[in-house]
């Protein structure tokens, strides 16, 4: 009875790993096909020759979608890791003194009270757009919820007997945070990063779609969909349907994998 969910989890992890490998290597085997223009085959519907159809410049949509997913994956992963790092550092910083704690809490409340997308717009605007700006913007908007969780976890740990004993031995606060508290919350960080990941991807795509994210010359999913918007009323449905479907499937896979991992830990 116990082996079935574990088998499902292993299967999921395998599929997930394969997907990641395929995506990460896609730039190698796709070559320049996401950018290759065929002027004799513009806006072709899906067929045996053009699997997912072509866009207004005759570029293959399947190649562009795959390249876009790889891009989203990379940006999302970097942003999630950076966000987790910020959350962990600030949550442990908050443990050092009550003043720092109050400051960090205020910062968390501040950032959580502005809608994500508006904060993203502000940050992307401040940094001037581009891949790096998007990664930083998504990381800066996504750390607060995780930091709040980690802070609560650290607070309850700090009141545990073994920390009191260590304090009794005269250990400094910094020592306690580094050696006693941090190792305990590291698994939370892993799961936290994985749970941030799908959000990061969706927000990156949204930001790029609105025109303040990744560069429009890159084959990002947001760029593809913003392009598709222009041709939507002309009935070129494949331009809008496939990139979004790819993104949905990728986010769903990560999301399911993350929640499974959370249950396992």
């Amino acid at each position: 009875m116990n082996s079935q969910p574990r088998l499902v989890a292993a299967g999921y992890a395998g599929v997930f790993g394969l997907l990641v490998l395929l995506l990460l290597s896609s730039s190698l085997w796709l070559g320049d096909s996401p950018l290759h223009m065929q002027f004799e085959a513009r806006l072709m519907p899906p067929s045996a020759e053009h699997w997912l159809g072509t866009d207004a410049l005759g570029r293959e949509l399947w190649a562009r979608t795959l390249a876009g997913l790889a891009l989203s994956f990379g940006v999302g992963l970097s942003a999630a890791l950076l966000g987790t790092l910020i959350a962990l550092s600030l949550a442990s910083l908050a443990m050092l003194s009550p003043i720092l704690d109050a400051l960090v809490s205020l910062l968390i409340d501040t950032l959580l009270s502005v809608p994500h997308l508006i904060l993203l717009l502000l940050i992307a605007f401040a940094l001037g757009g581009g891949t790096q700006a998007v990664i930083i913007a998504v990381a800066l908007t996504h750390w607060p919820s995780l930091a709040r969780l980690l802070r609560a976890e650290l607070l309850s740990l700090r009141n545990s007997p073994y920390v009191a004993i260590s304090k009794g031995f005269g250990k400094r606060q910094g020592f306690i945070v580094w050696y006693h508290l941090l190792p305990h919350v590291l698994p939370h960080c892993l799961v936290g990063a994985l749970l941030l990941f799908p959000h990061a991807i969706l927000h990156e795509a949204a930001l790029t779609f609105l025109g303040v994210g990744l560069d429009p010359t890159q084959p990002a999913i947001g760029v593809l969909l913003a392009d598709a918007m222009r041709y939507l009323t002309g009935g070129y449905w494949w331009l809008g349907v496939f990139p979004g479907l790819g993104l949905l499937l990728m986010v769903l896979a990560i999301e399911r994998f993350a929640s499974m991992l959370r249950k396992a830990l």
Partner: protein
Amino acid sequence: MRLTAWLASRLLRLLLVLLSVAAVSFGLMMLSPIDPVDAYLGPQMAQVSPEQRTLIAERWGFNAPASVQFHHWLQQLLSGELGWSHIYNQPVSDVINQRFQRSFFLLLSAWLLSLILGVVLGIAAGSKEGSLLDRLISGYAYITASTPTFWLAMLALLLFSVTLGWTPTCCAGPTGVLSQEVTLLTQLHHLLLPTLTLALLGVATITLHTRAKMAAFMRSDTALHAFAQGASRFDIAWRHGLRHASLPAVTLAFASLGELFGGSLLVEQVFAYPGLGQATVAAGLRSDVPLLLAIALFTALFVSVGNLIADGLYQWADPRIARDRTNE
């Protein structure tokens, strides 16, 4: 007495948060590599001499240190002067006022719809964990939770407006007709699709949350006792479960106003609906700093009040939380 003390402390906190939202967003604007004089001039940039540029910078106070500019801006804010929006060529307060009026109905109806649908679906799914209905509803909720908002809006537009032609493809009214002359029915017709797409996304979180609460309740002793008395599953879900699970849903709905607003940015962009969300995107793209700052503050207020209501509701309904707070 305790209520007033609680409210006072929360209002103080709200003020502090708003002040730091102002500071953070102002700091971000100062960081921006976009030159404020260029942004103000727009296409006339080329016709202005360097001397005139320095004059403009002096006139608007761009030469002053950041702290002085911030102080000045705050003073203006407190006297109700939000500045001038150069992309709409109107005072910022007018832009927000007009745009929010248009967005308000969209936000409100999407919010109500997602709350009602979310609670109904959540209770239906949670009242019999593992049933076919539960698996269908949770599967649906998981999928919508991973769907990009703007893509869903695009699909809806493609299907209902372009292919079937049931709903208009853009805007808040037919083109070429003054907004005063648009009938209520036409307005509703234009709002239908944006509202439905915006609501669908909120449904997922509320459904999953309600489902979890409901499933936990169905395993509780209260439910077991009711079962033992011979009550049917529907009876238990309807008479006990609904009350148990609907309050957390309402609280969650108030707490997720920010997400709703973020969603409206995307939905309004796709449907070209001239609301506050579209104005936000335009302000970001065309560097209308006063408008962007004012919208950030306005939405922060909006979201914070939502959070305050959520917190208050929880305290009022569940005294255990208030007690925990005082013990802290």
